């Protein structure tokens, strides 16, 4: 799964630490998601969407691999 967390974060001029605080997760989690190493839970995805004021599907997109 791809995500545009880094882009959305840049638009809002937030650091990883800022976003971590807003989403109530650790900085490691934000970093791992941006690097594509971790796929967040639905709850965290919805939290991020609310923070960025966009739809979840605007941040996360499925890839071919996700259907395998």
């Amino acid at each position: 799964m791809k995500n545009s967390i880094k882009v959305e974060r840049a638009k809002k001029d937030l650091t990883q630490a800022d976003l971590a605080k807003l989403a109530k997760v650790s900085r490691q989690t934000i970093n791992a998601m941006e690097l594509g190493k971790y796929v967040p839970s639905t709850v965290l995805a919805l939290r991020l969407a609310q923070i960025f004021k966009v739809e979840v599907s605007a941040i996360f997109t499925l890839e071919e691999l996700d259907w395998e």
Partner: protein
Amino acid sequence: MKISYLFPNKFKNIGWFIFIPSALIGCITLVFEYEPSALDFNVFAIFIEELLGDTYFSGFVKNNILNEIFGILTILSSILVAFSKEKLEDEYISKIRLESLVWAVYLNYAILLVGFLFIFDLAFLWVMIFNMFTILLFFIIRFNWQISKLQKAIRYEE
């Protein structure tokens, strides 16, 4: 995320504080078979098998309790170290926790299988003794190593 099966974060340091000395002293006294006579007691046992004798349930046996003391301290403190929350225990940390636990179980039983195949008789008793503690030890090493790797990755970002 509410997690009810972990201890509060502050217990992690308390755990380390007890774990390191009791694991070290416990190991040393075990290997050198140090059994001070002041700690010889008649203790209650629920299952007894006498050397070349009877087997029966419940009774009293003479035993040096030094091993028991350090064994209990080591197990309880390593449980605190292993299963106390991180400062910010979120879903990603939980995933690493689960992965590390599975990894530790695999490694622990891999070592036990090697022991089954290549170590016999009384020597195998040593494998069993260490195997009791290594599952938690392997978890602690692997989990903390993964967490520190993540912290390094973050510092690299900055």
